[in-house]
């Protein structure tokens, strides 16, 4: 009986110390931005990057681009519409859309016009110029370039879960729609599947 209780009180002290230790400083390690860091199994930068890569490769290699070039003799102008998040996570869709935009603009094959929100700010600036800027630097209203295509899309997810285990499936669909005719000229799709296991015990 005695040895049992002594162990109990020692245990109490060990526990107490463990709790006290737990308030340590964080450690920081810098890693490459293209390294895979899966922490919680949630949507992360790696997923976003994979989607952007896949979509960019696909959109630049398809026939809509050469066809437009041939027919119109210029690079198509694209506007980014909304990419709706219909998944079970709060996902910032802007990161991979921005990645795509950058790659497409830099490729020189596609031009982009500012999206509805960005335009508002630019327009108010042009309006300001009308009043305050000198005549030779003043930009006139009504010279905006109308887009030929709009990029829209959605992220969907299916999650199957039992206690401590999850299978997550994400599907990202992007569509390029010709303005005026509403023709869909390109459909991009990327699927990502992960399994997440949570430990049954912790300290």
């Amino acid at each position, binding site marked *: *009986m*005695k040895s*049992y*209780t*002594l162990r*109990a*009180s*020692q*245990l*109490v*002290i060990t*526990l*107490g*110390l*463990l*709790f*006290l230790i737990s*308030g340590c400083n964080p450690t920081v390690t810098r890693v490459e931005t293209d390294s895979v860091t899966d922490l*919680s199994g949630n949507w992360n930068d790696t997923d976003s990057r994979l989607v952007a890569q896949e979509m960019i490769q696909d959109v630049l290699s398809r026939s809509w681009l050469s066809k437009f070039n041939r027919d119109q003799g210029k690079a198509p102008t694209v506007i980014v519409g909304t990419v*709706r*998040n*219909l*998944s*079970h*996570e*709060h996902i910032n869709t802007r990161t991979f859309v921005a990645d795509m935009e950058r790659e497409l603009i830099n490729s020189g094959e596609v031009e982009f016009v500012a999206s509805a929100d960005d335009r508002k700010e630019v327009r108010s600036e042009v309006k300001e110029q009308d009043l305050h800027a000198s005549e030779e630097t003043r930009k006139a209203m009504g010279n905006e370039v109308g887009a030929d295509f709009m990029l829209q899309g959605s992220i969907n*997810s299916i*999650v*199957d*879960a*039992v*206690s*401590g285990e*999850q299978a997550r499936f994400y599907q990202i669909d992007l569509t390029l729609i010709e303005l005026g005719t509403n023709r869909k000229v390109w459909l991009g799709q990327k699927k990502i599947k992960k399994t997440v296991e*949570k*430990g*049954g*015990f*912790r*300290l």
Partner: protein
Amino acid sequence: MLNKPTSLIKKHWYNNQTLKIALIVCVGSLVQSCASYGSHATSMRGGLLAGHAEASLAIAEEKDKQQKEVISSLDKGMLRRITNDYSGSNQILEVAKHEIEALHGVSITENLASVTINETLRGYEGDPYEQLLLHAYMAMNYIQLGQIDGARVEMLQANVKMMEWGEEPEEDAFLRYLEGIIYESLGEFDSALISYRKAYIVYKEKGGNQYPPAPVALKKDLLRLLAWQGLQSEYKSYKKEFGMADYSPVKQNKDFGELVVILNNGLAPIRSETAIPIFSSEVQQNLRVAFPIYKYPKQNLFSPQVTVNQKQYSLETVEDVDALARYSLEQAMPGIMLRATARAVVKYNTQHTAQENSSIAGLLMTVTNLITERADTRSWTTLPQEIQLKRILLPVGEHQLQIKMLNVAGNVVDIMDEKVVIKSQQPSFVIKHWNAPVPKKIKIIADKQAANKN
């Protein structure tokens, strides 16, 4: 020869003594951080009950600056909501979500602590109903921020959570109802129908115990969507089940939109600590154990009344948090008592051995055990007592809306005025929290001060 045993005893006593002092210091600091939730909650709720939500928020924000405790984050989230800081509320509730996730799995140290020291050393991850309401309140925050897609995400996360809980998931009726409303506002009628159906099943199965009886509004919503989706046989069978033979669903009409009023009324019950002696057959002794109880019965709520376009509507209770909280404790009680008994035996034994070594050590151990024997009174006490709801079809355009709070005698104790813009075939939400009328005195003083300055 004679000296030797005494010095041995002395040495032994000394060692034990340091051990005990170290123990008291360790445990004392631990107990302070956790066990004071009850008094903290009481002072925090005091602000709300006096109509000073900002005072409550200030008290809550002072606690747990490292944002490690789920319970503190939940309270902060609710109080930030009440004081109209919806994005701040979501930010801290997201922290709570992560901390709950981190508490997944059986903790070895915490379980040992709960049978040697007390229950408050177990990580608090919230009861299932609290975890689901966390998603419901985040969804309401997103709705009030105008981000309905964000609200949809919260509903899906709640779904994953329920899925993880197993075969017979702990469904929450209000969460399902809210989910239906969110789907419906996004035009996803098929999903909305499923949610309404699930909500109704929970009300039907558990109504009268943890849940209020199925709201008439939900029955109408379910019938309406069944009719819209053309599921005639199910429509007829539910109509029969509800005894609503006269009901005919409204047609989809571009000139109308919906007003959804959600009122978070009152405050959830608060747990108190009590102690009883229980007889342990193992040590043949009466041992003192502490455990949580709900000391006070359910409070009487003020009843809300919505006036819009000269018409008056009363709200229906869609979630009875009071009942959920009491039921949850009832369910947890056998486990709590089992651990309490085990703990009492361990504590008795430590006292007993300490006493054998020296009377001071024994006394110290007794005091330590008495101090550390605390009940776990943690629960999300800034939740409302009830959630009440009303959906009203209104013509498109701006409307003045008044929510009156009536006491038992039918006298108006408070009036809230709201302006709401109804959009075609879209719901507009008015979500309110009410505990007490905001004292007018303060306003008069503030006005006077402003006048003096001028």
